[in-house]
């Protein structure tokens, strides 16, 4: 493959959009041809520069997020306690709901009651 033939394949190769055959052709040629390798590297650098993300959000954004993360470790025991209390309450409510009145036959509610985890 000549340098002129290779040239149009370089951009797809650099963006990872070559077919396997084109990729092989590029790699074989680039390994042997310093001129095309230089062209390829320049293309790569241009694309990287064009895509360089130098901007950062204001440090305030990070500080706010950090504070939220730190609050999670403090809040967690409370959350767990609340969740546990809610589970117990739900289990009690369920038990009451599912308790059949002793003399009566099972109601449709009981027959169709889903596994308790669905309600929790």
């Amino acid at each position, binding site marked *: 493959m000549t340098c002129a033939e290779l040239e149009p394949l370089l951009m797809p190769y650099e963006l990872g959009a070559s077919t396997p055959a084109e990729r092989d052709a590029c790699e074989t040629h680039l390994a042997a041809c310093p001129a095309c390798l230089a062209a390829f590297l*320049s293309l790569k650098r241009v694309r990287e520069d064009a*895509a360089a993300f130098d901007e950062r*959000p204001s440090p305030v954004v990070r500080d706010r997020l950090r504070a*939220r993360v730190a609050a999670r470790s403090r809040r967690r025991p409370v959350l767990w306690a609340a969740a546990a209390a809610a589970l117990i309450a739900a289990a009690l409510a369920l038990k009451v709901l599912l308790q059949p009145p002793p003399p009566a036959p099972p109601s449709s509610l009981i027959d169709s009651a889903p596994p308790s985890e669905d309600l929790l």
Partner: protein
Amino acid sequence: MTPPTDEQLYERARRGDVAAFDQLYARWERRLFGFVLRLLHDRSSAEEVFHDAFIEVLEGPRLSFAQASFSAWLFRVARNACANRLRSNARKSAALQLWPAAEPSPTPEQSLTESERASRLAESVRRLPHALAELFHLRASGLSYEEISTVLGVPLGTVKSRLHTLVHQLKGDLP
């Protein structure tokens, strides 16, 4: 010792580990913010979306990494927030202005042709339709095609065919 994965840092940050959050944040701060800024073209909106995306992944429902990586989720959340914002602001035209004005800053070691190429590429990226520009910036952020497919919510085949369109378009503008 191998550095912790994003997914490990994510789990620790969710449990309130600030040091883990710092690492995760440092890894993705520039790439995610750059991506959002390119899409919204407005710094304060970009900061809000960026902040909210981190809040969503850290405090929302726990992410599942069976199908997608942490970064794919993070970019997906941010990308959808950008799309909502662009829609609700009815400022879709802003999405076409993805590139800051090309700065003619030829350093001594830069050849003229290279800086010409750079500004032509920047210019052609700026002219890309929204879907292709999004793809370019996701790819430039270092995401794999599989991750991009998750972020955009389209099949891998669509990502690849869009990429060919992208390459075709950019190539046509380069010397």
